[in-house]
């Protein structure tokens, strides 16, 4: 059964005002194309969860889509501050809920595996536990020592960008796999955007590579370069100048508005956006091939 549709349709059908959204991808495969489509569709009051809000949630916040943010590290990776979200928190324009990376990922793991909590060992750091009542303690019945527990995170919708998927939604990822699997399994609905839509036989030629199975997927969209300015391992590089440039763009309301007008509202879809970036950028982000050693599954 094909779940292939346009990104526009996928967002229309699966992302609604007030949803809890998890746009997955730790530093890699960040689904920027989907976020831009959410902005274009004017979706409001989202609770957005990510270990690292990154530029993707800075953009959603700037466009007024965000009511609340759940996170564990709010920075512009390798650059510095995430100005828009930081200001929104400092000025209390958004609500926030905060964890450490492992706490955040444990919440997803609990959601993805159907558990009411996941334990983690004590870290000795007391302040976040005091600030967030969702972080609790339990006594280990075997040693009588205390463990920290966090509750499941159960997003309404996860968006996951992948290297390749078939039309049913079976999706394969390589390079940094982050929390993609956990986000997909934890969520009620899953949108997959893919660099390539491949025949089912390609997926079936390497089943160990499959991270997300078709039956947890709601929609599959063919969106090359969907992760720019982040990257897709083996397809294109991270656009570091973009990350550095965002530090400037995000300094004033005017420059933010101008950027959104030009690069989000002013383009119809990712294909237009990519073409607009131009040849120099395409060339700069191009990567040479580097193939893995082959794997023999055997013909049984």
């Amino acid at each position, binding site marked *: 059964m094909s779940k292939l549709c346009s990104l526009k349709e996928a967002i229309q059908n699966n992302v609604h005002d007030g949803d809890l959204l998890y746009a997955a991808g*730790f*530093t*890699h495969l960040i689904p920027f194309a989907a976020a831009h489509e959410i902005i274009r569709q004017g979706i409001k009051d989202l609770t957005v969860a990510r*270990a*690292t809000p990154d530029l993707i949630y800075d953009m959603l916040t700037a466009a007024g889509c965000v009511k609340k943010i759940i*996170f*564990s*590290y*709010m*920075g512009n*990776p*390798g650059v510095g*501050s*995430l100005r828009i979200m*930081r200001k929104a*928190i*400092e000025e209390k324009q958004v609500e926030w809920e*905060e*964890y*450490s*990376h*492992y*706490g955040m*990922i*444990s919440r*997803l*793991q609990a959601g993805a595996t159907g558990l009411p909590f996941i334990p*983690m*060992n*004590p*870290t*000795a*750091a*007391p*302040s*976040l536990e005091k*600030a967030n009542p969702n972080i609790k303690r339990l006594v280990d019945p075997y040693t009588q*020592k*205390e463990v920290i527990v966090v509750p499941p995170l159960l997003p309404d919708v996860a968006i996951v960008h992948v290297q390749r998927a078939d039309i049913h939604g079976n999706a394969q990822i*390589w*390079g*940094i*796999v*982050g*929390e993609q*699997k*956990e986000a997909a399994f934890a969520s009620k609905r899953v949108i997959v955007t893919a660099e390539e839509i491949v025949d089912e036989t390609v997926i079936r030629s390497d089943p160990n590579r499959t991270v997300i199975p078709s039956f947890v997927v709601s929609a599959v969209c063919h969106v090359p370069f969907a992760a720019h300015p*982040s*990257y897709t*391992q083996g397809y294109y*590089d*991270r656009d*570091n100048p973009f*990350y550095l440039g965002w530090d400037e763009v995000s300094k004033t309301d005017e420059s933010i508005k101008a950027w959104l007008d030009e690069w989000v509202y002013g383009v119809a879809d990712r294909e237009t956006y990519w073409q607009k970036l131009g040849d120099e950028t395409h060339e700069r982000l191009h*990567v040479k091939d*580097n193939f893995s050693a082959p794997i023999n599954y055997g013909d049984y």
Partner: protein
Amino acid sequence: MEYSNSELLTVNAARLLRDEDVVFVGVGLPNLACNLAMHTHAPNLVMIYEAGVIGARPSRLPLSIGDPTLVSGATAVCSMYDIFSFYLQRGNVDVGFLGGAQIDRFGNINATVIGDYENPKTRLPGSGGSMEIAGWANRCYIITPHQKRRFPEKVDFITSAGFLNGQGERQTSGARGGGPQAVVTHLCIMTPDETGELTLTALHPGVTVEEVQQNTGWLLKLAPKITVTEQPTSEELRILREELDPDGIYLK
């Protein structure tokens, strides 16, 4: 040979690493320090990144924790849940590097907020993985410039645990790691005494105790014998400048 503060920090951080250490490393100076150690006395160092990369061999300087150059040529890549649970929580990480906006008398780190948490004066990035690194790596090293505002007597928020209020409080917390073993600044090296209080144990060449004290927000304890660190060798500087950061992105 002349050297910058960043080079001094990096060289002294590298020297704390032992061969075959498994190091949980971020970008920037810690990454350079690990690579320098691999090029000198610790060829079998294993670098782990919180993005889930093990045994990275970056062919260019990684500019973010998720740089694809960390993946190509690594020995293993795993999920974020796995890197924190199978590696860090299980006790497979020997060394963690940490930094932060504030470091206090007992090596506690604040990377979350200046002022009140609910009404932040300045909102900082938050923990990321540093709460777990500080809690569970066998040894932690704090690498930071030495300025008075960075070294208050007590941090506003304990993002990552040092020795809390000292006197064994960390030990009773149940955290498995040994806590910060040294704070390396561009002026000196401070190590915790038996109560967990940071103590001045070594000065970099040409630095005085007074200079350190002036840049520290409490009356700094002095070790009975304060040594002087060996200055960066020309070979160390050559590796840093020619091989690891030729564009001077982190070391200028």
